[in-house]
């Protein structure tokens, strides 16, 4: 929803600050929930999760996305007016919103591909095992 607001495709009756205030806590809560359930799944089947290319690429993208979102939220807090007035209309910021959305699409795909890691061929440690 935050990406859609930056792109101007939804929530245009709300300021960027209002949008992040509405969805930010749910975003953080969702990330914690995924962290806890993800750790439980890794503990349950460590070989299935850890010996896959998809899992490690997914973890890398989660880390990248978390850094991007943290920087965005910090910058919005410090330069709220500048974000509302000019930054949100910049093409580069809209591009970053699309990239962030696509990173999450890739995270979902990679999460599913953990069960099909053989499609990576020789890149998959599971194939070598």
């Amino acid at each position, binding site marked *: 929803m935050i990406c859609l607001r930056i792109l101007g495709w*939804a929530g245009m009756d709300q300021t960027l600050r209002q949008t992040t205030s*509405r969805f930010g806590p749910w975003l953080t809560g969702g990330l914690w929930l995924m962290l806890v359930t993800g750790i439980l799944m890794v503990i349950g089947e460590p070989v299935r999760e850890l010996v896959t290319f998809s899992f490690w690429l997914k973890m890398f993208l989660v880390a990248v996305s978390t850094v991007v979102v943290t920087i965005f939220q910090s910058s919005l807090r410090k330069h709220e007016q500048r974000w509302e007035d000019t930054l949100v209309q910049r093409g580069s910021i809209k591009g970053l919103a699309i990239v962030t959305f696509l990173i999450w699409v890739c995270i979902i795909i990679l999460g599913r591909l953990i*069960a099909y890691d053989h499609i990576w061929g020789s890149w998959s440690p599971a194939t070598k095992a």
Partner: protein
Amino acid sequence: MDIDALLKFLEASGLAARIRDSVFLFPMIESTHVIGLALVFGTIAVIDLRLLGIASTQRSFHRMASDILKWTWGAFALTALTGSLMFITNATVYYHNFFFRMKMLLLALTGINMLFFELTAGRTIHGWDRAPSAPRAGKAVAALSLAMWIGIICMGRLIGFTTTRAAVAAPPPAGTNFDDFLQGTPNDTGGTQTTPPPRR
């Protein structure tokens, strides 16, 4: 044409065979299905939480619904398309699967639930559009909607755990030494299986 013949016809179609035989197609269609479902549930949850008075309580419901629901319907079309493509690859097994039937039943009930909203609280939106929450009927619809969509996600996951060969494989014969598996030495006296990786 009876239902079993129709299911066999779908499974035998060129499209179903192409998806089944491809290394990439099924996982990609399944991933797209999950993305669509995440968007459907996420956007519906935003609406339901507004109806319940838990979040977005300052926004006009009508404005918010018209802003968000187009994304919900787009994502729903994506899940329906990808779901149908997955279904035809193994139609008979899915059709007879308990969790698949429960998922379809819950989907139908969410449709009825939505219709109930339109006939009750949906008719008086102008009266509570700016109120922090919907009237009682709207709240009931929202709570039911959230519960049913969580159920749909759970059923969807359980389909994956109950329709693979790996999931129904017979237990290993008595006397199987599991240390052989851990040491990576094949047990050629029986007990090892060469089932494909489970789809789950």
